[in-house]
């Protein structure tokens, strides 16, 4: 039997939508700015359609675990890797540097 992909939720059973005001955290604003910068290149380094495709490909588990901007940055990272904008090694090393700086400043990891 064919089933809709996880993101294709139209018509699924759901409760009421919870509408709440939400203050954006600094990292969420940064993600927004990064995506805008990438998509404003001509041709764009990352198009809306690529970003959405990357989010759809996250699949049921991760899709539900991540929040909105976490999905954005995860998708953008995967697509830039596909395009060879940076290597897996470079990404790992940069993440490690930032993580150390983060912990040194007394912050905790999620």
């Amino acid at each position, binding site marked *: 039997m064919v089933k809709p992909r996880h993101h*294709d939720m*139209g*018509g699924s059973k759901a409760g009421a939508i919870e509408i709440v005001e939400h203050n954006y955290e600094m990292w969420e604003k940064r993600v927004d700015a990064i995506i805008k910068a990438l998509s404003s290149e001509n041709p764009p380094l990352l*198009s809306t*359609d*690529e970003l*959405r*495709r990357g989010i759809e490909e996250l699949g049921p588990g991760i899709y539900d675990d991540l929040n909105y901007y976490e999905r954005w940055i995860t998708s953008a990272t995967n697509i830039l890797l596909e395009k060879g904008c940076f290597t897996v090694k470079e990404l790992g090393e940069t993440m490690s540097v930032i993580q150390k700086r983060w912990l040194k400043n007394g912050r905790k990891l999620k």
Partner: protein
Amino acid sequence: MNKAKYVKGDKIKISSLFPPGHVRTPFFIRGKNGIIDYFWGTYPNPEELAYGREGVPGHPLYKVKFKQFDLWENYEGSPQDSLSIDIYENWLEPIK
């Protein structure tokens, strides 16, 4: 650029296809009948743009109107209730 094949009032069926990939045609309307309500213009194909390609030639995009009654089993609302969704021409099939 592809020339628009349909005009307002044409009866169409949404293709009953279920590929992976970046698809802008929601699952719940596939295989359903609708009517062309408006022609929006021709746009690069998002199914191609999603993979970093240029999406040319562009595809005509229409507002397609469905009867809610045709979409949902045991629909309890008015038979007049409708739903409009923007669909690219490559997902439309003519109904004679």
